[in-house]
């Protein structure tokens, strides 16, 4: 359970890097040849051949996640995904893990804010068997009652265990405070109460409603020819039928921006602090300017203003960073830091000082050009494994970026000016109406905020 928190952190960071960096590579230096096909049943297939190693990476993205859940059944998307590999018409849960692990392969399903994925990583020699298992969990899950109970207990137990982790507590409280009842304010796992509300019928219904070819993207990268892929699809996915999707229930995001401070007491040595508010959606035209701006402010590792001041000069934290979570709908903007209880006040006031300065003065020419050269120059380096490419292609399709996005994006980044950076800093970082959550030994922290 332990490294769940890292998975989460990793996800957020990765997500950000993904969209700030991956697309930036000028296409003339890194050719990614991708074939896009739309099948008759509506499934979008993306395929890139890479024959240097005998491996195949498959990602199936299904457009269903947090946004499709009801509040009192939060955790439904996650539980549905987790149970796909826990029993099908043809196999018991234990048969699935035994068969896939005997091949030294992996087959996992998970849900996220905007979408769910099923991922298969397998050696080329085993692709037939692997694809058959993959199609079985995708098309034939039966959601056995005992597996549902078992999974619920594990998820609830792990939610409980994570309460040991102050970063979990601070993130959960922050999200909830910013989004209120909006789905992005909830954990993907839901809560102990909402998990108990989920019945087998809910899972079956949710699966039947959303796990449809016309709601999915299949991305395949590796040692597989077009002919081989086509025959796998014909053989194993031909029974997957198109159907109408349920109407999208409009969920209003209440964009209140009021100042709110939440303090949680815990017997720990470090204050865990998050300061921020609602951010932007992935399709915001200011996305590129925000990427450059955030890199300079707090996203650019050791080059960022926050890191230079709070870690390098003041020695007050091991890590401090800011990021925008980029989702289909508006996500979060947040600054996250951990510092010993006693210096929490000082760190918070330094963050506010940095925000103030950042919204008043233009960044320097050097800062701007360094940010651009990092963002544009790091692309080809980051997209360096078949697994990353498979996931990347599926996301590009999901966010409607187009397969030529790589070329366009580089130009967008390079067109950003200092004035753009200042404008979006003023527009998307709010120095007054923010949510501030502090998990700490409150007595020792003795906050003035």
């Amino acid at each position: 359970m332990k490294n769940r928190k890292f998975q989460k952190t990793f996800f957020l960071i990765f997500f950000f890097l993904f969209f700030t960096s991956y697309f930036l590579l000028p296409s003339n230096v890194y050719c990614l040849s991708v074939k896009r096909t739309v099948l008759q049943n509506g499934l979008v297939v993306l395929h890139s051949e890479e024959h240097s190693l005998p491996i195949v990476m498959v990602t199936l993205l299904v457009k269903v996640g947090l946004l499709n859940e009801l509040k009192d059944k939060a955790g439904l998307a996650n539980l549905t995904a987790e149970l796909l590999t826990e029993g099908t018409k043809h196999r018991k849960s234990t048969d699935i893990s035994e068969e896939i692990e005997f091949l030294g392969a992996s087959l996992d399903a998970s849900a996220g804010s905007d979408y769910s994925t099923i991922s298969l990583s397998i050696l080329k020699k085993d692709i037939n068997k692997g694809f058959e298992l993959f199609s079985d969990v995708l098309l034939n899950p039966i959601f056995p009652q005992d597996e549902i109970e078992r999974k619920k207990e594990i998820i609830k137990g792990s939610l409980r265990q994570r309460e040991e982790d102050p970063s979990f507590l601070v993130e959960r409280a922050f999200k909830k405070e910013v989004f209120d009842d909006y789905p992005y304010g909830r954990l993907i796992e839901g809560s102990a109460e909402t998990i108990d509300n989920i019945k087998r019928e809910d899972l079956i219904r949710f699966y039947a409603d959303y796990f449809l070819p016309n709601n999915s993207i299949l991305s395949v990268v590796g040692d597989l020819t077009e002919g081989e892929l086509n025959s796998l699809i014909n053989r194993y996915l031909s029974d997957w039928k198109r159907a109408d999707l349920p109407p999208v229930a409009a969920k209003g995001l209440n964009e209140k921006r009021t100042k709110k401070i939440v303090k949680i007491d815990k017997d720990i040595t470090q204050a865990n602090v998050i300061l921020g508010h609602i951010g932007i959606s992935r399709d915001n035209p200011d996305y590129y300017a925000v990427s450059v701006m955030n890199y300079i402010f707090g996203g650019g590792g050791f080059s960022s203003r926050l890191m230079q001041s709070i870690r390098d000069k003041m020695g007050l934290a091991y890590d401090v960073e800011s990021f925008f979570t980029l989702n289909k709908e508006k996500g979060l903007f947040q600054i996250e830091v951990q510092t010993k209880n006693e210096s929490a006040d000082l760190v918070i006031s330094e963050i506010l000082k940095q925000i103030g300065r950042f919204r008043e003065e233009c960044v320097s020419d050097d800062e701007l050009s360094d940010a651009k050269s990092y963002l544009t120059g790091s692309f080809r380096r980051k997209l360096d494994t078949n697994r990353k490419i498979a996931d990347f292609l599926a996301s590009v399709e999901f966010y409607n970026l187009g397969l030529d996005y790589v070329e366009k994006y580089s130009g967008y980044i390079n067109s950003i000016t200092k004035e753009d950076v200042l404008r979006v800093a003023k527009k998307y970082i709010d120095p007054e109406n923010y949510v501030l959550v502090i998990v700490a030994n409150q007595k020792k922290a003795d906050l003035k905020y």
Partner: protein
Amino acid sequence: MLQLFLQILIYLFMKRIKIFFILSNLLSILLIVSSYAHALEPKEYKLDNGLRVLIVENHKAPVATLQVWYRTGSRDEPCGKSGLSHLLEHMMFKGTTKYGPSVFSKIVQKNGGTDNAYTTKDYTVYFELFSSDRIMISVDLEADRMQNLTIDQKETFSERDVVMEERRLRFEDDPQNSLFEEVVAASFKEHPYRRPVIGWMSDIKSIGREDLYNYYKVYYSPSNSVIVVVGDVNSDQMIERIKNSFGNIPPIPLKKNSSFSEPEQRGERRVLLRKEAELPYLLAAYHIPSFPDEDSYALNVLSLILSGGKSSRLYKSLVYEKKIALDVNTDYDGFNKNPYLFFFDATSSPGKNIKDVEEAFYLEIEKIQKELPSEHEVQKAKNQIESSFIMDQDSIYMEAMKYGLFEILGDWRLIDRYLEGIRKVKPEDIVRVAKKFLKEDNRTVGILIPTKKKDEK
């Protein structure tokens, strides 16, 4: 499956934490190695000053990595100065006579690169990843900080504070990791492996500029390091540049490492930790040999039979059938200079007794000490190892890590020996090593006992 190991690696040693995604793959290589038949042959060099260089040309994508492996880690620290190697690792980013403090990473980033470093008990690694047309920047930067580190007094104090924050983050406020420190410290009486890589808080506080400088001068030399380059490079050009940049750095004769030993454990040791936490947690550690000991291969396979995925014995018994644990892991890779530990850990399910978790674990151990595992079960573990090895080759970073690690352990060619060793493991070997090492007298058991919170919310 190797969560614990992953934690350890990530927790202690990173200069910063933004690189989880790379490290999360590392666990599979360290656990696991070889099969896409065998290791690719690197070009090998040795400079007159003793610097070893391995270059693997891989032109799949226009990217490259350069890594500098120093043959020193926390086990080489003087008494009372635990955390010295790790603090020095941080100081390696804080300026040389040529570049001011905190310039290193800026240069790397503005060229589209990533840099980082980590410290272990046995070695310390620095690396950069660049698009291949920029990789020479690495050569110059690394050569500079191998010889010209400043270790400024003021910067030292500030970075020491940063490391103390890192320790609070990873250990003080993390109950399961706190137990890990306790168990390792109790497992070793004499061997410096007992010290945490990040160092005890009081030791970190006592480290001064002179400690760092002396350590740097003794251990950071070309004769005590290995450079590994993997990626889209021309090895002739690369070695020329390395010779030009590193060739003039004088070697430092290294006094032979004093040989460390640990007396045989003759009775179970138990450690209890009471701390604010939600669920009880168990961590057991057994002394075992390290690679390439003849028993290390079977121990690797045994570890996978016990906890390699949801079809493994411990998962099936403790999590799936008995429902007494939320997760189970074993961790053994054997990739240490001296004999280290085989770990088992599990978090109790809510409302269950940690005693039952412990007993269920011993029951599975007894079972594998008495009955031969099936050929199929052994083959499954071997398949997992082979497959991971092939998949890891997809990443130049992982490739470089593998060559560096095996070179540190003796010779990169051990990669092939490792794989051959794994392939030869028979069911009888599993029973033999389980009997030989996983016994009561040889283990240290730690239990985290959650205490009530000070104020209930």
